């Protein structure tokens, strides 16, 4: 009889029982993250979509629906088309350069040498330094009057003062400059990704390839790269998404100049939507990123899944 009375579950025990269920615990744990994404990403995103379809400006915060008029205006602007093109060049140029630097950096850091741990820690610095500080430093390096890069080139006799590169004043060089700064920011992340991937490759696979006569390049391109491609693709998705939506480097270094040569979507959307107060057109410019990013991310995720199978 006592046993029957004892078998009645106490509330605390029932609570523990619920938490023991994986589905309930899982939902509880992931709940805050979903809430965060919904509130801080989902809601602003939906607002941006609505802004882009409305006549909303800071002057007249009206929500009247205008359909696709804002998108039509934006597409009709030749400067916007130039901006879209610049965004692709900036994004893929800096990702490519960042990946190349990251790959070589990872290969260097895999080999043992004195101070390797310190170098591994230092190499993360570009990623950790606040972008505003780093960009100001780069701005001085590319400065028309005080460029340390030009000073070095002149000192080495490579160029004279009069024909030294005008880094931020010549359209192609200005684009190259912002690409270099973004690649410099991105490459520590690429190094970490490559290091994680390469160290996960079983040593016996590499040893077998070496015994079979595979040299450095063959091992690199026919064994290592294919095996780490899924993890590199994940890193690349991050890089592309962050770069495609970034405006900080352009805003701090060139303000889209010279003659719009470095204007990118994020910058243009900010200037139109926030600085000039035309929120609806600013949102339309910013939302142009969405289909591009969607296609890129879906394609890369499909690629990763196929590789894993």
């Amino acid at each position: 009889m006592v046993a029957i009375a004892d078998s009645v579950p106490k509330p605390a025990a029932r609570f523990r029982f619920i938490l023991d269920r994986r589905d309930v615990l899982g939902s509880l744990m992931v709940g805050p993250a979903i809430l965060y994404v919904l509130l801080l990403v989902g809601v602003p995103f939906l607002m941006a979509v609505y802004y882009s379809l409305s006549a909303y400006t800071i002057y007249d915060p009206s929500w009247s629906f205008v359909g696709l008029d804002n998108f039509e205006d934006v597409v009709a602007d030749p400067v916007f088309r130039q901006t879209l093109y610049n965004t692709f060049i900036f994004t893929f140029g800096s990702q490519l350069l960042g990946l190349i630097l990251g790959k070589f950096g990872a290969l260097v850091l895999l080999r043992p040498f004195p101070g390797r741990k310190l170098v591994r820690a230092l190499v993360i610095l570009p990623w950790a330094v606040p972008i505003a500080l780093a960009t100001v430093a780069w701005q001085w390096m590319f400065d028309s009057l005080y460029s340390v890069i030009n000073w070095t080139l002149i000192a080495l006799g490579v160029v004279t003062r009069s024909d030294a590169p005008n880094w931020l004043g010549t359209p192609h060089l200005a684009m190259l400059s912002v690409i270099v700064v973004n690649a410099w920011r991105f490459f520590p992340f690429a190094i970490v990704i490559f290091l994680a991937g390469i160290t996960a490759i079983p040593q016996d696979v590499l040893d077998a390839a070496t015994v079979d006569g595979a040299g450095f390049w063959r091992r690199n391109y026919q064994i290592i790269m294919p095996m780490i491609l899924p993890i590199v693709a994940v890193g690349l998705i991050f890089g592309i998404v962050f770069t495609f939506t970034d405006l900080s480097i352009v805003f701090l270094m060139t303000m889209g100049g010279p003659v719009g040569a470095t204007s990118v979507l994020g910058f243009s959307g900010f200037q139109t939507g926030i600085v000039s107060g035309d929120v609806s057109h600013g949102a339309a410019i910013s939302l142009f990123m969405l289909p591009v990013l969607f296609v890129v991310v879906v394609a890369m995720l499909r690629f990763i899944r196929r590789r894993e199978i």
Partner: protein
Amino acid sequence: MGSGGNKHNRSVTRRSFLKASGAVGLAPVLSAPFVSGALADNTALTIVQWSHFVPAFDTWFDKFAKDWGDKNKIAVTVDHIPVQDVPARAAAEASAQSGHDIFGFNGSGGAHLYRKFFINLADLVKETEKKYGAVSIIGKQLGYNADDGTWSAFPDYYINFPGMYQKSLWDEIGMKPDTWDDVRLGGAKLKAKGKPVGISLGHSNDPSTTWRGLLWSYGASEQDEAGKKIILDSKATVEAVKYVAALYKEAMTPEVLSWNDASNNQYLASGVGSYIINPISAYRTIQQSNKTLADDIFVIEPPRGPVKRIMGAASEFYGIWKFAKNKEAAIEFLKYYRDNWPEAFKASSGYNNPCFANLVPKPMPILSNDPTSTPPTKLAILQDSDKWSAIPGYPGPATPATDEIYYAFILNDMMAKAATGASSAEDAVKEATQRCEAIFKKWARRT
């Protein structure tokens, strides 16, 4: 009656009491983000404005505001933010309907853009005009709404853009940069000596301001006097653009294409630049770093064009949000600030220029006799800078449309394209006109 009938039958259990008190306790926390910030607060006043280029002005202003607050038993808070953050901050405060009471705004069209968010300050402006003389053209451009006679803002000051030149260099060639032609011809001679002219063709405020001044001096402008129509595509504009192309080729170097607002200051300070157009901050900085060079740098009126002598200016105004918690104190503070404006003028070392005729009586302190300059009358010409200064939008009002044209750097690019040969002057003007018209058309639908 009906509801009262159950009153005595209710029992307050410990559980229901806890529930009720918990709900009451949580309510402010949960509802805080949705509650309007417009609840009146007569004990505090908050102000936000840019971090002034002259740090001493901020120090003076903070103390001035605090002292006023102490006298009136109001806690005054002054926040200073970087100038480039001002538009985003204003947009955030307007969207949230919450923020500072007084918003110190940089940029010409802000008062018109935020017109529906700012209270009407017509009484304050009229009272100020009675006490200190007529408001200037810049002041009117900044805050006056011609359609209903309201004032969205109280014009605080403008920052003039005089010419600055190395006198010894210009004396050597027997010239003075008095007209745009002098700048080009003399600049070409000095460029040959390794001392070019330095006026930016990049994306920043200085070229946006300077090239507008050049356009106006040629009799051209982006919009008409009523602010209703784009009139950029004109013979005068083409002539002005051709002039810039010639100036660039003959008297400047390609580095001006990359410049930001600090670059021309550095150019003059390096001793390389023979002439720039800039607020006197450039000169003040050189005074601190290189006294010999500073003594050789002279401040001159901006160049006269074929039609008139006029130059762009930067501007600052105060708006009071409709959702401000302490509007009365905000207005009282602005009155007190206005009545002590000569002190503000001195604290800014003559950088802030008044928008009312007699706000700082002439001879103006510092400008008429600056003991740090050799000769002390070096800055005297700036006392009359209201005669040759205007802000974007001139000869019409500053509007959201003219502001967008400004922030899209359309006129800068028009000049740069012609200068670098990427377009002919005619094509550059046509393209810029189309872009301006598209912006005007867009805003016409929405204002």
